[in-house]
């Protein structure tokens, strides 16, 4: 079976939203990251983003991508397994 849709997000992301038509994966990614990383990294909102908050957000973005890739691979494996069992 071809590598399927489970390729790492990194390559898609770089090419500017991988031909997604109406569903732009880059845009969705940005929205989710903003939501998740705001929750994880910003405590009481101050007058500006301080250094530690910025560092946290940067790490958070990377971890979110890692998570996305992990989920993508796991889902792809599961799909392949299901197909093999049919």
């Amino acid at each position, binding site marked *: 079976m071809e590598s399927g*849709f489970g390729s790492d997000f990194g390559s898609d992301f770089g090419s500017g939203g991988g031909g997604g038509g109406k569903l732009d994966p880059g845009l969705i990614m940005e929205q989710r990251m903003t939501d998740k990383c705001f929750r994880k990294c910003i405590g009481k909102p101050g007058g500006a983003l301080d250094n530690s908050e910025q560092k946290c957000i940067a790490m958070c973005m990377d971890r*979110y991508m890692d998570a*996305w890739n*992990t*989920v993508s691979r796991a889902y792809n494996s599961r799909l392949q397994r299901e197909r093999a069992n049919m």
Partner: protein
Amino acid sequence: MDAASGAGLGGADPQLQRFIEVETQKQRFQQLVHQMTELCWEKCMDKPGPKLDSRAETCFMNCVERFIDTSQFILNRLEQTQKSKSSFSESLSD
């Protein structure tokens, strides 16, 4: 040249039809990955660190499997529930 022979999108061109199918599947796949990543992030991630540690990674993998198990469980049980009740809507009509 005609729309009659094709079913839905792609019309008479099987290659185009196939392409549309594949692209649709890809989209569905991506949507689910987005959804699961979001859900599993809440369950598996504490404070973002410099790396995705192996515990978190395992958690994400388990999370995907359990999510799909849940989805299948619900589908199966709904199917059974509707089979055993002769008419599902009867119980709702009052």
